[in-house]
């Protein structure tokens, strides 16, 4: 049973991390495409329309990948986590069904119109279709975040005598305070990814001396939105998300920060290795009192360390949680620096002469993917050992009759299929990028 549980967890972790590579681009890109379509209408600049068409192709490939890797997520709640589904389906099923009914129908219908209906709809109609695709994907994100937020911080429910949860307050569930900050933090993270991708393609074109007029537009739009989103993702949304964790999952905060002992004036650890045998951080580089200040706005405030909690509520993989969190925060800081440098160069009108900087931009696009993945690992590892925080343990949620062998078979199968998907994806994306924005530029019928 122990191994089956590990395999169920690994399969879910693997499939959801792989899946989320695609929505984080499409959700952010949907916004940027709306901006491109808006600029085209406002400035009467046909090149923005052409840019939107180019990015729509990249969007469509990512969207298809997101759809096909997303369906397994809904299925796996039932196939691998049957006891959890029996327990909580009446609540989280609400938002999963709402996602289908409100977001997916909207998205799939208007994506068809957006990709195939430019001539039939006219410029304003096409802008509207782009906007509806954006709305659909951002709604979809909200429903998923509410689902996750209920598992992180359950609200609006009651437990009956048989240990079954029931929804008692729909609006409390839908407007979970945890969800609001998590949503903004997550969506801005998606915008960071897409901004760096757009800017990186622009940098590639500029550095190779092709499609220069597009390169300028991609770089300006990408870097400007990278600057705004990477700031907002840290402050206020990341900061508020951290305060939510401090308030509702204090043991998780202690594990994330690597704080083993309760302390007044706790230090913020920048780098160091958690040592689970001696329960301390080895080789730490830290800033005194900063953690207390960031959490409670007082330099000498007491922050609870792991020693304040019984061991059976400690997250079960503290080093991984600690590293994931520190990688996210570290990369987030680097994004702000890179984007700010770009703004500075742009302001001094040296952006397009600074080839060294454009090299950095071109090579930077994988890192937001890593940061977003690490952020989700922080959220999900931090919730352990609970599946629904404080209510249902992960060990009690798996399907009772699905054996470890079956789970291993399907996990390996998913790995094989997703490896194939990756090859196809990289091949198609590189092809679109090398064809460039002027390839197939007559609007489709």
């Amino acid at each position, binding site marked *: 049973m122990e191994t089956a549980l590990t395999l169920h967890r690994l399969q879910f972790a693997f499939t959801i991390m792989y899946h989320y590579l695609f929505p984080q681009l499409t959700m952010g890109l949907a916004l940027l495409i709306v901006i491109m379509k808006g600029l085209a209408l406002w400035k009467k600049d046909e090149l923005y329309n052409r840019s939107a068409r180019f990015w729509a192709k990249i969007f469509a490939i990512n969207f298809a990948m997101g*759809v096909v890797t997303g*369906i397994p997520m809904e*299925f796996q709640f*039932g196939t691998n986590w*049957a006891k959890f589904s029996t327990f909580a389906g009446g609540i989280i099923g609400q938002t999963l069904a709402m996602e289908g009914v409100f977001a*997916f129908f909207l998205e799939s219908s208007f*994506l068809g119109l957006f990709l*195939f209906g430019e001539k039939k709809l006219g410029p304003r109609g096409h802008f509207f279709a782009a906007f509806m695709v954006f709305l659909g994907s951002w709604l979809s994100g909200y429903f998923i975040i509410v689902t996750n937020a209920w598992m992180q911080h359950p609200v609006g429910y009651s437990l009956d005598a048989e240990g079954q949860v029931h929804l*008692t307050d729909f609006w409390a569930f839908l407007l979970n305070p945890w969800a609001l900050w998590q949503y903004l933090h997550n969506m801005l993270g998606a915008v960071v990814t897409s901004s760096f991708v757009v800017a990186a393609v622009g940098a590639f074109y500029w550095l190779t001396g092709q499609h220069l007029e597009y390169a300028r537009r991609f770089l300006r739009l990408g870097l400007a939105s990278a600057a705004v989103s990477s700031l907002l993702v840290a402050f206020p949304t990341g900061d508020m998300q951290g305060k939510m964790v401090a308030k509702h999952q204090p043991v998780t905060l202690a594990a994330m920060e690597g704080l083993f002992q309760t302390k007044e004036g706790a230090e913020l650890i920048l780098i160091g290795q958690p040592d689970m045998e001696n329960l301390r951080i080895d080789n730490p580089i830290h800033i005194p009192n900063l953690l207390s200040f960031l959490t409670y706005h007082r330099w000498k405030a007491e922050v609870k360390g792991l020693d304040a909690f019984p061991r059976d509520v400690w997250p079960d993989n503290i080093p991984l949680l600690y590293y994931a969190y520190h990688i996210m925060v570290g990369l987030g800081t680097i994004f702000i620096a890179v984007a700010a440098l770009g703004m500075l160069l742009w302001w001094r009108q040296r952006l397009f002469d600074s080839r060294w900087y454009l090299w950095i931009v071109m090579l930077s696009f994988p890192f937001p993917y890593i940061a977003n993945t690490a952020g989700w690992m922080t959220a999900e590892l931090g919730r352990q050992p609970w599946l629904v925080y404080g209510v249902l343990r992960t060990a009690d949620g798996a*399907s009772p009759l699905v054996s470890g062998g079956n789970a291993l078979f399907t996990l390996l199968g998913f790995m094989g299929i997703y490896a194939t998907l990756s090859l196809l994806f990289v091949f198609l994306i590189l092809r679109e990028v090398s064809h460039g924005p002027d390839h197939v530029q007559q609007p489709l019928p």
Partner: protein
Amino acid sequence: METFWYIALSFMFIMYVILDGFDLGAGIVHFWVGRTEGDRRIILNAIGPYWDGNEVWLIAAGGTLYFAFPKLYAASFSGFYLPLILVLWVLILRALGIELRHHVQHLMWKAFWDRTFSVGSLLLTVFLGAALGNIIRGVPLNQDGYFFVPLWTNFLPGPHPGVLDWFTLLFVAVAVSTLTVHGAHYLAFKTGGELQQRAARVAGRAWWGLTVCSVLALVATPAVRPGFWARFGEHPWGGAFVLLSLAGWLGMYAFNRKGEHFRAFLASAAFIAGMGAVTAFAHYPVTLYSSVNPAWNLTVHNTAAGAYGLKIGLLWWIPGILLACAYFAYLFYIFRGKITSVPEDAGY
């Protein structure tokens, strides 16, 4: 309240089979009707703007099942673990077949994805048929309300059956022949020229297969599931669904012969709706039979979510579904008309 959600779910699953059914059917007859690369391009463009939205009906129905009858969702999804994961893999490959085909102008590339799409469509239809057969036959539910079925055992419907046995294979044949007819009708009304004529011929021939399989299934059902027709005796108005299937069955034949392809398509849709409704009506209030002990059957009552949740669900489900129907009507309106030729690098 449970009854409302049972009807709502039956409605959503039937919508799914009608809508995704035509693109699955188009996939089954992809090589049969589409002889040249150009033909197959037309077929893919005929389903192009719709297939993804059609599939959303499955996702939305799954989500609704999850929230209204969480225990049923948990039991059936974990019990059908292997076939469902296989469905996922086939869904992934089939979708890629449709989406990736037009990206590269190379005959080998297109030939490969055409086959992926067609075989994937056939396999999904096989699973749909097997699912229907399993629901009617029952599964080895234990006293905790869980089960696990292997893909096959001895191919006999007994207390410990597999997903595939002679009875469920019969429903596989019903599903494949029905969606072949349905998909061919769709192509006949959506295309023109030789392609249209071929589609109509395919539909006409497959109709005989559908008739034979349906009659056999009709004979076999009371043998495997005694009392299947009992509720029709208690509530004769359920007979309306039987009449709907019959009308659809006759309509398919008559309209296809007369060359009224749109009406033939509506007739096959009516046939699917009728058959689905008959099954849902006959089963109520049972949602999943236990082949081990009838006391362990899952019903709408012992699997439903709390009363408050079910009531609040009405608040968003009704406007949501109306909106979805409106999007579909708009989509079909915008992309109305026949597709007779498609440039090589456009669309699908």
